[in-house]
């Protein structure tokens, strides 16, 4: 104890002068302030104005932007699309990513190549991927419909119909993030000690029980991490929507982020756009806090 206190005192003595501490923190702090904290504060401020993105002047309008959003059915539609998109990408990405990892965790001939192929969409620019998928989703002669008709199913209109456009964007997003989830699950699965399964087997646990009682709890920190990352990624999805559907047809793939983009940079209503952005930040924070709270129950470190 005496020794520990001594070290602490010495440490404090050396670093108690604010300028010295600041010197070390600044390299990380300056970019954070310039590119993150300041823009956020600025956005929050702008959401209370009627700035049109071009004029040098603007007026404070109080809560008007928020109130008109809450009266706008387009906003709730976008909110609903965001929920559908996030849930629709989050759950399949995690479930399918885990299934792929379980299939590939045992090394066999060609498993390395398969892992690489499955992971490659993650490192390919979303814009490029999305362009390829617009070809795949072509109603006439696209691969997606060719496969459907080969299976005897009737072809779909994919991104050109408001019924299937969201499904299409969701498919592309899952396909892109699947490999990422798989890689994290692979390393998590490899770290589960084999002896736990042997102990489980001797305790009488079937393979299924071993999966639910040993595998799932052991990889729960990875599941939690992937849930947060995938959720944030889904809330921020823009590239694939921009290339595939531009929020259409008839607003069927317009998420909150895409609405922000349309309000701010197409309709030049920066006040309302930043109000959407502020609501998104709040939404992200609330969801993350909720997930962290819930995680105490099911994540085992």
């Amino acid at each position, binding site marked *: 104890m005496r020794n520990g206190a001594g070290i602490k005192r010495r440490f404090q003595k050396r670093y108690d002068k604010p300028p010295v501490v600041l010197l070390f923190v600044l390299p990380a702090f300056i970019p954070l302030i310039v590119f993150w904290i300041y823009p956020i504060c600025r956005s929050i401020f702008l959401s209370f104005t009627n700035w049109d993105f071009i004029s040098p002047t603007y007026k404070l309008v109080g809560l008007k932007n928020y109130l008109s959003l809450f009266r706008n059915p387009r906003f709730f539609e976008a909110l609903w699309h965001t929920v559908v998109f996030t849930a629709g990408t989050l759950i399949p990405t995690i479930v399918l990513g885990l299934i792929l990892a379980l299939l590939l965790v045992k090394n066999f001939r060609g498993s390395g190549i398969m892992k690489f192929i499955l992971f490659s969409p993650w490192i390919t620019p979303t814009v490029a991927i999305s362009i390829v998928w617009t070809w795949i989703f072509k109603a006439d002669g696209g691969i997606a419909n060719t496969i459907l008709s080969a299976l005897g199913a009737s072809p779909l209109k994919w991104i050109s119909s408001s019924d299937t456009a969201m499904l299409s964007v969701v498919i592309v997003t899952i396909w892109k993030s699947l490999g990422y989830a798989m890689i994290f699950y692979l390393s998590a699965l490899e770290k589960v*000690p084999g*002896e*736990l399964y*042997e*102990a*489980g*087997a*001797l*305790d*009488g*646990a*079937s393979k299924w*029980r071993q999966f639910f*009682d*040993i595998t799932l*709890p*052991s990889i*729960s920190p990875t599941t939690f991490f992937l849930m947060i990352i995938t959720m944030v990624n889904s809330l921020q999805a823009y590239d694939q929507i921009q290339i595939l559907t531009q929020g259409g047809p008839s607003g069927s793939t317009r998420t909150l982020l895409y609405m922000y983009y349309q309000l701010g940079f197409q309709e030049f209503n920066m006040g309302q756009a930043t109000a959407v952005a502020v609501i998104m930040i709040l939404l992200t924070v609330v969801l993350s806090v909720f997930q962290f709270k819930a995680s105490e129950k099911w994540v*085992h470190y």
Partner: protein
Amino acid sequence: MSEIILKNITKEYENGFLAVKDVNLEIKDNEFVILVGPSGCGKSTTLRMIAGLEDISDGELLIDGKRMNDVAPQHRDIAMVFQNYALYPHMTVYQNIAYSLKIKKTPKAEIEQRVREVAETLGLTGLLDRKTGQLSGGQKQRVAMGRAIIRHPKAFLMDEPLSNLDAKLRGQMRVEIADLYQRLNTTFIYVTHDQTEAMTLGTKIVVMKDGEIQQIDSPANLFNFPANRFVAGFIGTPTMNFFDATCTEEGGQLVLQTEKGRIPMNEKKAAALRDGGWVGKQLSAGIRPEHVICADRGEEAVFEGEVGVFELLGSNAIVYVQTASGRMVMNTSDLREYAHGEKISLGVMADMVHVFDPETERTVTN
């Protein structure tokens, strides 16, 4: 409550490596069997085959007369304690111990009662709500045993259960395991490379080397009547001294001639040597350090040399002596100080000499 029989059990890995070769072993009810040997001798593999964690390449495993080769570990009714404990890290001590009962859908009240009983036996009562990560090595070891005990299995398998503990705790847990065996009255099969554990715990010891059984015997017989040179050297600390000697006859008396002296053979040993046709031939002989004596009081000197290292252990001392026949170790209770480099003559207790065939290393006479 169970009898385990291994018939010609062989384990060959996919790369052709033979880990266990034609092992035959009969384990009776309530026996405490120790599989002991140096690392890589196949003892753990044998244990894991009994548990069902490794496939049996050839041979037959019978538990209570039933062939178990293709029965999954879940259905063998055997409990195992692992070297690294293999506790479920996300469960509490209570949940770890209760897990097997929970799988069997045992009523909650009965689980609760049985867990409390086991915890009482092992001194874990105050720790039941802890996560396993908060436990010390010895406590983890107890939980691992609790998880095994609660099922009332046909047999307990233990794979080097004490090797992750520090020396003091190991001694303490060894006594607890011996105590547990007395109380539970079940079959124990215990793997270790530590011959002290083997000698103190086992009722029957199986010494293995290179996948083959060298000797199956009681601790006392293993020590006094080793079947070959390997067993003689493996059991006992400090390890047995080995030296070359020639069997010669002097006036009707058989002696082992060393470089410096003669060891007379008693009638029993002489008969065995004559029967084997060893008279006039070179042999390998062994003598335990506790049977080496200082020959400065008129006993016949068999070795002469210089004292190397002298270790005073309290009630006894270990003296390492460099002789013409190699290094000889003497374990003596005569507590005089030996100086480094001191010239010394050593004798042996002639009746305690072991003689081995230098080619096959099998025991000629004990």
